[in-house]
Structure formats: C-alpha cells, structure tokens
C-alpha cells in the first residue's frame, strides 16, 4: 500500500529523523511504498492564512501548492504515519498547522448539506500510526493527557472508516534514555511496521 509519512522535526540530525528513516525502512521491507513529507524540509507554513480561512467553507479551500500536494497524497494513501516530538503535551505547531490546512472540507470530511454536521471522508485510510518522543515520563504524560495522540487517534480517526486501525509508539523520558535504549526503540518501530498489512 501507499504510506504517507509526515515528519515534524526542524533538525535534520534529530532522533525523530532517524525514527522516520527506520519507520520508512520497515514499511518498505514490508513491501509498501512510502512517501515522506518532511514539513520543515519542504518549508511548510504552520499558520492558516486569512485567505485560507475565508476559502474554508467554499469550493476551493486549498490555496497553496504544498498543501495541495499533501492533500493529493492523503487522497491516495492507505496509511498515515506521523513522526514528531510531543511538545506541551501535544503536536508541534507545524504538524497542528498541517492538519488544519490539509485536512480541510473535501479532503478529511465534508459538511452534510442538510444537517450541517461533519461527515468523514478518509475512508481510504486503513492505518494511522504515531511515533513520538516525549520529554516527560510516562506517568507525567498520563496525568496531563497525551493530547497529541488524542488529536491523531481520536479527532483525525473519526474522519476515517470504521475499520481504520491505530498504532502508537512512544519513547518517554527521551533525554534521559541511553543510546542503547533509543536504538532499541527505533528497532522496535522498524520491526513492527514491517508487519503492517
């Protein structure tokens, strides 16, 4: 299947980048085609513009070629993989902005003409995968709630089909982890994604 891997870390030599490489390697070993969307690498702008907000409820809500390219990829993909650092219990602004600008009416959902309510439009997505690094310990993340994970596995998930599966990989307390522990985690991501069907 075609997999869209969305990467949201500004530093090319970051652990998130190596996790993205390992995730992609695992998926390719499993026979899947992977397209990596490196948000900082492509110069993606996080903030929705006034022009986009005005166009949001109209026929052409997309006004930027980078957003168009992502939306086109999402329409063809069968799996979405997100690799990002959890900041302030949530998605980094650039990834949050990607959701806001790409997952617009006609791409992620549509407004029902009669009731005005939101209806899902991502029935092509069979798997949603999250790979995230956390500065906090697992228990601290439980207390504040893992809002990035919730946004992806709940808010985004409800726009997919009933059978869409979610998979989550988190490495907690990441700055206090040894190189060995980091490598083990990356290895697990690669291994388990090889099995994705």
């Amino acid at each position, binding site marked *: 299947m075609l997999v869209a891997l969305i990467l949201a870390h*500004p530093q090319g030599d970051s652990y998130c980048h190596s996790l993205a490489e390992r995730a992609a390697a695992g998926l390719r070993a499993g026979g899947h085609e992977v397209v990596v969307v490196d948000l900082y690498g492509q110069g993606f702008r996080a903030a929705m513009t006034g022009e986009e*907000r*005005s166009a949001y409820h109209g026929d052409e809500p997309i006004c930027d070629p980078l957003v168009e390219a992502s939306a086109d990829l999402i329409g063809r993909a069968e799996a979405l993989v997100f690799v990002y650092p959890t900041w302030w219990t949530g998605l980094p602004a650039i990834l949050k902005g990607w959701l806001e600008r790409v997952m617009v009416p006609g791409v992620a959902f549509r407004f029902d003409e009669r009731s005005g309510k939101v209806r899902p439009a991502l029935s092509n997505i069979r798997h949603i995968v999250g790979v995230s690094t956390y500065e906090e310990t697992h228990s601290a993340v439980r207390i504040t709630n893992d809002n990035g994970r919730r946004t992806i596995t709940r808010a985004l998930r409800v726009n997919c089909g009933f059978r869409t599966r979610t998979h989550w990989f988190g490495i907690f307390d990441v700055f206090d982890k040894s190189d060995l522990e980091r490598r083990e985690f990356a290895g697990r991501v690669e291994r388990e994604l090889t099995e994705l069907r």
Partner: protein
Amino acid sequence: MIRALVIYCHPLLGAYNEAVREAALAGLSSAAEEIRVTDLYADGFNPEATTLDSDGRCVLGDDPLLVGYAADLAWCDTLVLIYPTWWAGQPAMLKGWIDRVWVEGVAWESAEGPEKRQPLLGNIKRLVAISTHGSSKSVNMLEGEGGKRTFTRGLAKMCHRRARTTWLALYGIDTSSLSDRESFLAKVERQLSRLP
C-alpha cells in the same frame, strides 16, 4: 486590580472571535489596572520552531518579538487566551506561541526528580481560555478536548501553585443562532468583569 495579558489568535478581520475579544476587553476594563493585548496574526508571529538547542528543544532566542512576549508573561497576573478550537486544540499559530515562548528560563526551569519542570510563572494566578468550537460539546468530548487539557493541565502547571483556570467555550458555533452567539458575548463580558 489585575494586570491582564490577552493573547488573541484568529486570521480573519471581522471574525466572531474579534467580537469575543471586544467583549472580553469590555469586561476587563472594569477589573484591570492595565491590559496588554497581543494579536499573533497582526504581529506576523512565526509559529514554526526555528530557534532550538542541541537537544532539539525550543529556546527563546534573541528575536525582540519573542523576548517581548516572554516579558509580558512575566508581567501579568491574569492570562486570557482567545481563539477558535481547530482539530480539537489551539490553532497552530497559538500552539507555536506556546512551543516557542513557554520555554526553559521563561515558563520553567529544569529540576531533578520526577517533576522535571519547576514552574517560573508564579506571578500568573488566573488563566482564562475563551474558545469557539465548530462542533458540538459531545463531538468535542469524543475527540478528547486536547486543547482544554493543554490549557488546564499543561500551561496552568507552570503558573502559581494555586492558579485558577476558567474555560469559557461556545460549542456548536457552525449551527448556532444569533442569540446563542450574543448571549455568549454577554457571558464573556460578565465573567471577565468579575475577575479576579
């Protein structure tokens, strides 16, 4: 009398959120000794993380805009956020303000032990979030209300030990009536005039 910092985030002139902001300011005018208002879009703030340390953590850097934002946080005792909830949370613009301004040395300092972050914003005793939601309350609960939790459990933790949070939300704005929206504005003004 309070010192209020208002952070406003909406890309469109004439948005309903603008009316919310004006209602909030009208309420604050009787309660506050001084009000500072930051309009993130008008300031041309860049929410993408561009200044980082070698571990990949955001740092404030020397951009005067960000240095000013940090000084405002240290100055206020009441923080008011006004924004539309998109995808269950703060818009990227506002999330970027959190990512880039609430950094080590501004909002917290490192400590040993399970609580890695010791709060530095003990001056903030009251936090108010005012947010509009396209979907109903029940859909938002299904989606997890991440933005509300980032506010009540994330940001508030870096403020005064007994800081209080107030969540003022208008749910289901896409299907709301004019009177729903008007009564929400009245509620915002009333609540903010009663601070602290």
